[in-house]
């Protein structure tokens, strides 16, 4: 393993860029997405996989390398229609179905593990050889949940998985010759549950994290569907339709953490006892249900959340171009945006102000409660921050203001996706790779720029701290007295990459999602606590 020298690397870069730039343009080459699989996870773990492969090459005698490589990224798998495809990614998909098509009432159908396949980012699949993976345990909230017979992939052994709640299945990777590492080199975990009498695929998330201790050395995989505990509604409207994929978050009273599920069109809550409860959304994309129970209402890509002083939950319903509110009795209403179609171009000084329900709002991506109980909305496609107060929408920051800063190029749009107030009444929001601040007197101040670490994506404030998320997973904890302090490298070290959600408690605890790996973490004074993760 020698490092590339500068000239060789430069030559490869030149050749690759030239080859791509001169290749025939064929939009049909865009690979199809695999449902339920979030490819950014595969992208994110690449360095780990490479590291794992390096370790293996180092330790394992040469004849075994090719066998192991098929679990990393160099397997060639013949498909009927194409040349051999490099199965480069580390996706795993666990297919199961009930052995009995019509289980007796009250009985849980046994589930057969049929196959575990890897799916690469182009959607190509590689079935792992029989005997390579073995289901070793099924656990629910940390305790054994279902009996497991030996279930080697390809041998279709029966495993009982009960419906309701969710379970964690641990699958061990059997590579017996990797004795130098001690026990098994890796295992991965799936989380999910089986609905009675239905066949489904477990679409899995994270992949190969390499060898080592538990935190760094597991393969994890989420499986669908996930059904929240105590959703309290018929399954047709109360089921989370697929994997739990935490997005933007907000902290409610009494330790309740609200979590958006943008790709599932639902909002869930994590209760202090660790269980999840569905709050809003049927799972189908659309706009309906105002005046009725939030669980029977349709949302369309809910993003940012905020909790009002009265405990009501505000939802930035992005694709509906509206902000919704869930009242404490569970009723959902629309509080801002007329949902109307948007103009091709937005005036630089923002869309017109007006009565909240009769005024255009374009792609609300984040909301927060601010001064005097007003709601502040980051309108992504308007490049504006809009205030909702006394039933009126008023633009408070426009693209004009941002350009006047000279920090935002005039050719550039801002795309705010995060908005938060600190305790001094300063409004923070992100703008491309910059973090900006609107002071109580109305001036916009440049607060930071994390270009090298990716785009700023979300921000949150609580207690003394303002936290900012960047796409590479760095959180900037910014005590108001010393605004440049950051909390470097904590997130990457626990495997958070490209996170989508961040929330702050009044005690300054920061909550983030796992980005790729489905997980929720709490960060407090440099300590990281896992609130929920696929492997419980």
């Amino acid at each position: 393993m020698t490092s590339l020298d500068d000239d060789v690397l430069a030559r490869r870069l030149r050749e690759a860029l030239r080859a791509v730039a001169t290749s025939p343009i064929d939009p049909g080459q865009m690979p199809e997405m695999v449902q339920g699989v979030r490819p950014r996870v595969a992208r994110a773990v690449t360095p780990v996989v490479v590291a794992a492969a390096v370790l293996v090459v180092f330790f394992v005698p040469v004849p075994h390398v090719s066998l192991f490589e098929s679990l990393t990224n160099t397997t060639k798998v013949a498909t009927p229609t194409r040349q051999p495809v490099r199965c480069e990614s580390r996706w795993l998909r666990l297919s199961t179905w009930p052995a009995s098509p019509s289980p007796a009432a009250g009985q849980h159908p046994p589930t057969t593990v049929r196959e575990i396949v890897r799916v690469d980012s182009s959607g190509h699949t590689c079935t792992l050889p029989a005997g390579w993976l073995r289901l070793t345990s099924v656990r629910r909230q940390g305790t054994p949940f279902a009996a497991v017979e030996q279930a080697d992939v390809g041998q279709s052994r029966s495993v009982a998985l009960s419906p309701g709640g969710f379970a964690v299945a641990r699958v061990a990777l059997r590579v017996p010759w990797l004795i130098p590492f001690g026990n098994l080199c890796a295992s991965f975990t799936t989380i999910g549950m089986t609905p009675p009498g239905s066949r489904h695929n477990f679409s899995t998330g994270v992949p190969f994290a390499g060898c080592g201790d538990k935190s760094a050395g597991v393969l994890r995989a989420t499986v669908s569907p996930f059904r929240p505990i105590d959703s309290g509604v018929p399954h047709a409207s109360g089921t989370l339709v697929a994997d739990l994929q935490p997005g933007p978050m907000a902290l409610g009273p009494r330790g309740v953490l609200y979590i958006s599920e943008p790709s599932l069109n639902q909002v869930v809550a994590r209760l202090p006892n660790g269980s999840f409860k569905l709050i809003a959304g049927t799972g189908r994309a659309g706009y309906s249900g105002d005046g009725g129970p939030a669980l029977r209402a349709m949302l369309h890509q809910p993003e940012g959340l905020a909790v009002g002083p009265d405990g009501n939950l505000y939802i930035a319903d992005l694709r509906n171009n509206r902000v919704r509110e869930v009242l404490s009795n569970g009723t959902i209403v629309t509080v801002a945006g007329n949902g109307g179609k948007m103009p091709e171009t937005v005036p630089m000084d923002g869309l017109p102000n007006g009565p909240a329900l009769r005024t255009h709002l374009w792609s609300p991506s984040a909301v927060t409660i601010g001064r005097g109980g007003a709601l502040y909305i980051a309108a992504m496609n308007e490049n504006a921050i809009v205030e909702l107060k006394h039933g009126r929408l008023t633009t408070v920051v426009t693209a004009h203001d941002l350009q006047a800063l000279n920090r935002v190029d005039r050719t550039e749009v801002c795309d705010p996706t995060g908005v938060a107030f600190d305790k001094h009444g300063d409004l923070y929001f992100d703008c491309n790779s910059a973090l900006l601040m609107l002071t109580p007197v109305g001036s916009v101040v440049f607060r930071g720029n994390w270009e090298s670490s990716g785009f700023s994506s979300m921000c949150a404030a609580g207690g003394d701290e303002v936290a900012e998320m960047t796409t590479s997973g760095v959180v900037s904890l910014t005590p108001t007295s010393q605004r440049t302090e950051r909390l470097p490298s904590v997130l990457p070290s626990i495997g958070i990459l490209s996170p989508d959600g961040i929330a702050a408690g009044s005690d300054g605890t920061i909550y983030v999602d796992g980005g790729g790996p489905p997980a929720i973490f709490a960060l407090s004074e440099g300590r990281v606590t896992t609130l929920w993760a696929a492997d419980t």
Partner: protein
Amino acid sequence: MVRLALLLVGSAEDAEELVQEAFLRLARARGTLENPPAYLRTTVVNLSRSHLRHLRVQRRQPPIPPRLIENPELDETWGAICHLPFRQRAVVVLRYYQDLSEAEIARVLDCRPGTVKSNLHHALARLRKELS
């Protein structure tokens, strides 16, 4: 310019749209510009960045680098370039595809030459690690 945008966003269709938009803006800004080609290049880079960022929220999925080349070594290199954070990717593309100097890249990206240098350094370190 379409090629530049393609290298930055990884999708030919999107690249064409972005470049069209850049030309529209150029036409609008005509007369006030000292250096239209530089303006165009900066606009394409900025639009590409916004586009990728926008996609992230809009589709909740990152763009997947299309498989455009047959040569596995170059394909791997392209894959690694696609995994870089945007600014690093932009610096690499401008340096090794457009053959711009660090000072020129700094002008395109509207940042200090030192920032370009450090971005390039980090990008190459990451690429070297991924490709070794």
